[in-house]
């Protein structure tokens, strides 16, 4: 059996576990995967969080990817990070930077096994703030300054932080500038794929890269093996040589997501009932969900190439991303909406929108209601 086949049939514990610590967020990014904004009253308590961390320690999950929402909003954020590190569970957390003050940056710099990803979705304020909201560029830059000053990066007391960018048609032309910005801070650059998940379902059609940009990005990444991608562009491998990484959909096989209320989903991009495997609050906890849930068992069965069977590139792209197909309303055994051979666009053109799944309530903040003013007569 090849390694890929072994990984497809599932591991005893996930390799890459994403855990969203809260739905609360001070921003309202228009592509937010988890439709975050407001804290959910059912979110896991500190004691429940620690019980899950104990389980992850026993399962030898080496590190977790912490996100949200904005995870640093949790009042017990540092307590939980320290609890993880003490148990050998490394923490890589994503933040918009709003709470990375000079003091907190210095505290983080002393912590081993903690890595920080600052989210920034453009190489200039206008491009970034159009997606992440007004003031978010300044917020992220301040945090980057604070991390650098606290000793993150070359010559410092801590390893480099990461600059994490979701690729859109507006920032793909800025790859070079993003690379330069990361280099100015001695930071690592991490580029990830935009998914039509969460609030992204409504904005993906306007934001996702064009076919030309996909080819441009593929070439750019091939030339820069040091740029991190979280394996998220494996659908581009159909363009030729494989990009470094596992090049497979790891959902429920090597990857999963725990949301702030403890529900376990197949991957970070499918927060939807259809891909909910169970809850860490169920009997048997996370371990039972990972090893025994019906959904994960099913995802570990051999898959058929479906509509992609006749395409010579299936071995390279594996049909692409399950979440991307699901949220645009395409069948899971068909092409990825961003299939580089154009099969996704053709399939999308046949849909009328009724195939798209109901996104559910989400945790977005209510849109402020505009008061209607009586017209004032100016005489």
């Amino acid at each position: 059996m090849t390694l890929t086949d072994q990984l497809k049939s599932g591991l005893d514990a996930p390799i890459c576990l994403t855990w969203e610590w809260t739905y609360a967020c001070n921003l309202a990014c228009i592509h937010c995967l988890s439709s975050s904004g407001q804290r959910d009253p059912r979110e896991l308590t500190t004691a429940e969080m620690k019980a899950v961390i104990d389980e992850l320690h026993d399962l030898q999950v080496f590190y977790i990817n912490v996100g949200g929402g904005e995870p640093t909003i949790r009042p017990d954020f540092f307590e939980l990070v320290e609890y993880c590190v003490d148990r050998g569970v490394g923490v890589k957390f994503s933040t918009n930077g709003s709470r990375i003050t000079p003091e907190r940056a210095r505290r983080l710099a002393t912590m081993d096994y903690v890595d920080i990803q600052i989210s920034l979705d453009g190489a200039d304020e206008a491009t970034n703030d159009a997606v992440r909201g007004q003031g978010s560029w300044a917020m992220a830059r301040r945090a980057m300054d604070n991390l650098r000053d606290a000793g993150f990066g070359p010559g410092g007391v801590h390893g480099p932080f990461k600059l994490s960018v979701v690729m859109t048609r507006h920032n793909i032309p800025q790859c070079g500038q993003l690379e330069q910005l990361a280099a100015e801070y001695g930071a690592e650059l991490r580029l990830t794929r935009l998914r039509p998940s969460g609030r992204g379902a409504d904005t993906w059609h306007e934001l996702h890269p064009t076919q030309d940009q996909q080819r441009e990005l593929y070439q750019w990444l091939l030339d820069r093996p040091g740029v991190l991608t979280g394996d998220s562009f494996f659908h581009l491998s159909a363009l030729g040589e494989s990009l470094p990484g596992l090049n497979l959909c790891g959902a429920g096989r090597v990857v999963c997501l725990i949301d702030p209320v403890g529900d376990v989903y197949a991957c970070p991009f499918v927060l939807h009932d259809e891909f909910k495997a169970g809850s860490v609050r169920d009997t048997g906890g996370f371990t039972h969900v990972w090893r025994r849930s019906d959904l994960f068992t099913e995802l570990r069965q051999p898959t058929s190439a479906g509509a992609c069977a006749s395409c010579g590139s299936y071995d390279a792209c594996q049909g692409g991303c399950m979440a991307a197909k699901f949220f645009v309303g395409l069948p899971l055994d068909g092409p990825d909406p961003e299939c580089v051979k154009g099969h996704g666009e053709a399939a999308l053109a046949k849909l009328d929108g009724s195939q798209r799944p109901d996104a559910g309530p989400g945790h977005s903040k209510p849109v402020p209601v505009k008061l209607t003013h009586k017209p004032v007569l100016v005489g």
Partner: protein
Amino acid sequence: MRGLLSPGTVNAFDPARAYRLHAKVALRPEPFGALAYHYGNRRLNFLRSPDLVDLVKDLGNHHSVTAALQASPVEPVRHPAFCRALAQLAASDFLEPVPEQEP
């Protein structure tokens, strides 16, 4: 997970020397062998054979890689392949040479 199997700093691997699992590397048993994680450089590696896992764990008990292989149940015909796997692990710092004075 990018950079999973790419080599780090290449140190010349010498099977005549003693090596051991790096102190910051943890092994997690898996059906195919083990998953190895380096808490220092944050890299992952797949050890794709239970024999390789046993060998890696036992490596530090021998005065050389060759001696460790000879003491293992691995058939001599497979020794070159195992040596290559160990060299790769050493290249990404998953194995470290044992200093001469503490064999």
